[in-house]
């Protein structure tokens, strides 16, 4: 497939674009699956990014290993943003995924998408995409509650969230998400080495 003509001026071939699309689908399903049990419970809702980060590490690393070119992670982030917005999520959630996608892409790019440590770090960064909604909540609780109430979330849900959110929570959230993402990436890295590199999938 290496002698394929390039699409437009960019280095991404059609194969890379299709791969990105398919892995975005799996990424989306697993993010949803990991997050949904947390998101609906007011006490646990702050830990939702962790739940999402737990499942997607192997998928992300395989995507990077298969494509290893600039822009594919950005595309992943943008698609996540669009899809989450269309399903009616808070706008900061979408924006978080788009911006963290760009940052994660740059991070992995420093190692030319081959360095395992940097790939791991970039997965940790893209996992942070989910916490922006909650950070806005901590920066401006009143305005956030207003926006959410307009979105149709009930007042008592917000109240329950208020009582469940001491001031140390953002730190726990960020560190926890990073930690869970690192664990997931570690499992994913092992899986990649054990199962996929031998099978010649990652070339």
């Amino acid at each position, binding site marked *: 497939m290496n002698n394929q003509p390039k*699409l437009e001026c960019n280095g991404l071939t059609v194969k890379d674009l*299709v791969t990105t699309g398919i892995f975005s689908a799996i990424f989306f399903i697993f993010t949803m699956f990991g997050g949904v049990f947390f998101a*609906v419970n007011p006490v646990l809702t702050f830990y939702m990014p962790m739940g999402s980060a737990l499942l997607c590490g192997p998928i992300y690393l395989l995507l990077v290993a298969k494509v290893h070119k600039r822009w594919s992670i950005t595309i992943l982030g943008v698609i996540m943003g669009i899809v989450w*917005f*269309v399903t*009616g999520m808070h706008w900061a959630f979408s924006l978080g995924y788009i911006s963290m996608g760009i940052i994660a892409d740059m991070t992995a790019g420093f190692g030319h998408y081959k360095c395992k440590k940097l790939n791991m770090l970039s997965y940790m960064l893209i996992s942070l995409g989910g916490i922006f909604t909650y950070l806005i909540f901590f920066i401006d609780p009143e305005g956030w509650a207003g926006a959410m109430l307009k979105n149709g*979330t009930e007042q008592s*849900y917000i109240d329950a969230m208020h009582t469940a959110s001491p001031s140390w929570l953002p730190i726990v959230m960020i560190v926890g998400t990073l930690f869970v993402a690192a664990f997931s990436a570690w499992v994913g890295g092992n899986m990649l080495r054990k199962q996929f590199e031998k099978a010649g999938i990652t070339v």
Partner: protein
Amino acid sequence: MMGQNQILPLWLDPRTKILLLLLCVLSAMAAPSLQYEFLLVAGIGILGILCGKWKYALKGIVFYAMVYLFTVWAMNSMTGTLRNMFVAFLGLFHKVFPCGMLSGIVISTTKVSEFLSAMNHIHAPKKLIIPLAVMLRYIPTIGEDWRYIKDAMRMRDVSPSFQGFITNPGITIDCVYVPLMMAASKAADELSVAAVTRGIENPNPRTCLIQIRLGAGDAFTTLCFAAFFLAGMYLKEAG
């Protein structure tokens, strides 16, 4: 080829569908009351029936009606923590359901070629559109793969349940991820070869057998949804 064979009362341009989706998200955000949301779902259901998805639309409306009744009952008769749990869950549900239902109708009635051709009309970047189209088509395949994987796991005496995950995490993770990702990367190779064979890399403007154009139906549906959204905003201001 088979696009216009079945006569449907309403055929919408993919561009209109995207606009409708946006209006639906905005309406769900602005929703001043539960009745308004119910009307929104009913409207989406009518749209689905007109687009030929009457079974899906009816199921959606009936299901939503049941949840609606349950919500009304829960709000009136429940108390304490249980009520809080349900309020949280139902709040999210009512916000997401209309958008999800409309997305389902849009995805199932839009052919990939129509979508790509319409996106070409509005000069959306190809690098974003191809992955998006592939992704939307691949999501149902994941469900299928998952069923096969579950069968295969049972055959090897690995329990595909939460309990199995707790007692035997390593092997369960391997059994779920490895086949799923193997299948995905095989599918990526095959799909891209198929797409190249069909000339996706052709630099000339894309042509499509089905003519993409905006018609009276598009204008009318958009007007209905826009009016509905504005009514919601007005009701919110008034109430």
